[in-house]
């Protein structure tokens, strides 16, 4: 199957495969049948591409599944994608993630999505690394009208002494925990612990420079300012990367970025209340941007799961 299908009543859901050079991506689409109802001819067709970080197309705690069904009830077509090496996608072997590959796959999915649904305008929604990819795609797609970025870290984040110290502390804590495992002591007694690796981990010398990521995504301070797409950044208050990311994006997009925080939430908004708050903030922002053309009655069949749609 080279593409994915979309048909069925009211809120139509389908799953399928999208062929890209790196493999077969598993995709899920949700859409209302008629987009603009009786004014279909004059209403712009909008779609949302949801990009997970390095997880499944479901999103953490099925957040993408639920939010895409909600978006569909507002007249937005939605596409969720498993990158290759993730979820149901091919290839199945385990390889290190290459951000350039993820970006290329997201672009291929976006092109097919746009063509299949004859979309006029696109909204990109990304979580974590998905947000970085969304930012990157927004630079080159003229019909991207908005970006929603959940828990997206600063793409360019210099390794400051504070960050290095925080990293070392986190790693020390992890090693401390490992001392409670019998397997660790067995490894220690057998001389199987790689001291050099531990040192490298603690001093963070093994981490690839962020400039590589910048280059793969094509994001730099100069280029990112080139396109003025409205952006919403949503962070959990307890996300360790929040502070740095907020400073970075406020400086990078002083005119176009709206930045908001969900109190007490973590990186993945992993509680019902936090997920609800993140989606509510997103809905309100999309509405203010005039992107929810036709708010329908929220009668999605998914109503009730985590209570997301009842808010």
């Amino acid at each position, binding site marked *: 199957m080279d593409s994915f299908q979309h048909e069925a009543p009211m809120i139509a*859901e*389908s*799953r*399928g*495969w999208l062929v890209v050079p790196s493999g*077969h991506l*598993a995709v*899920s689409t949700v859409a209302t049948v008629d987009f603009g109802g009786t004014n279909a001819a004059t209403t712009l067709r909008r779609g949302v591409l949801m990009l997970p970080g390095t997880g*499944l197309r*479901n999103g953490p705690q*099925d957040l993408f*599944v639920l939010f895409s069904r909600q978006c569909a009830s507002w007249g937005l077509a939605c596409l969720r994608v498993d990158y290759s090496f*993730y*979820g*149901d996608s*091919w290839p*199945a072997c*385990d390889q290190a993630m290459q951000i350039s590959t993820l970006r290329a796959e997201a672009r291929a999915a976006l092109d097919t999505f746009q063509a299949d649904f004859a979309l006029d305008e696109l909204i990109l929604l990304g979580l974590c690394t998905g947000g970085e990819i969304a930012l990157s795609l927004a630079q080159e797609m003229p019909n991207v009208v908005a970006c929603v970025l959940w828990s997206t870290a600063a793409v360019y984040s210099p390794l400051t002494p504070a960050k290095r110290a925080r990293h070392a502390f986190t790693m020390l*804590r992890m090693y*401390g*925990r490992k001392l*409670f*495992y019998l*397997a660790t002591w067995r490894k220690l007694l057998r001389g199987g612990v790689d001291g050099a690796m531990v040192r490298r981990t603690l001093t963070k010398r093994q981490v690839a420079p962020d400039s590589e990521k910048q280059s793969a995504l094509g994001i730099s301070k100069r280029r990112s300012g080139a396109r003025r797409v409205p952006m919403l950044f949503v962070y959990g208050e307890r996300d360790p990367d929040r502070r740095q990311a907020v400073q970075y994006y406020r400086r990078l997009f002083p005119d176009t970025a709206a930045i908001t925080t969900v109190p007490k939430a973590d990186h993945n908004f992993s509680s019902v209340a936090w997920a609800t708050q993140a989606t509510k903030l997103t809905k309100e922002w999309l509405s203010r941007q005039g992107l929810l053309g036709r708010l329908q009655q929220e009668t999605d*069949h*998914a109503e*009730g*799961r985590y209570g997301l749609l009842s808010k």
Partner: protein
Amino acid sequence: MPKEDTVCFQSSGYRLHGIVHEAVGTARTTGLVLLNGWGGYRIGPHRMYVKAARAFAASGFPVLRFDFRGTGESDGTLAGNTAEDVRAFADDTHAAIDFFRQRCAVERVYLLGLCTGGEIAVLYASGVGAVQGLILWSTASHFELFQAEEPMRRLRHYSLVYLRKLTLGSTWRKIIRRGFHVRGVVRTLFADFRGIRRPAQQPTESVGQPNLFSSLRGPVLLVYGTADPPAKPSYSFFETSLQSRRIPYNLHLIEGADASFSSLPFVAEACTSTLSWLTMQA
């Protein structure tokens, strides 16, 4: 790419979504339905079900893996971690088997489940519906688990768990804010010494002993990791039950593996042992 189709079928009015892996080459008349555990998806932990399904399909066994209602992309909601949900999952399993039989012209269906998925498989084969065989990966038996001969094992295991938790900042925050549930900890550690039973939320507890495996038509494969604390009491229980019912079974232990076989060699061994057992049965 071997043929995989995204599929949708109904169970008690809910739309359930899954993936069918069609057999490569000459299709056998034996197929597998994979059941995920609590909070899991059709993907399985660390994509184990994807890899296993592709390996089985490559050997000629068609496979269906799907999301239970209220999980993943399927419709519905979960009532909570209760026997009610497990009963609903058993209904979903029935719908999945019916769908799979028609879709892939399969005559004999084996259920494969990891952890709670295995318990749902046991529940299903204990009077809910007929099934040819079971493959239970790291499936705990909550009938006999942690009973009289096991309290020391349980105490040792959970003491280590709590000690590890003391290295977490969140644990100390919880203690300082008095959010620490002391009675829960005591119950967890000393339940067996004091004769305290855990809340009756475990799936197989709802199956009466006389019904156990009552609708099972064929053999059982038990696969456990030796580093999984409840493994020994669980497979001992299943062995005793299967022997008393004269149901043929095989036990395969994976040296050093934990409950979710979380390393590539463990997954490979679980798949290989299951595949060779299935080939013998087919």
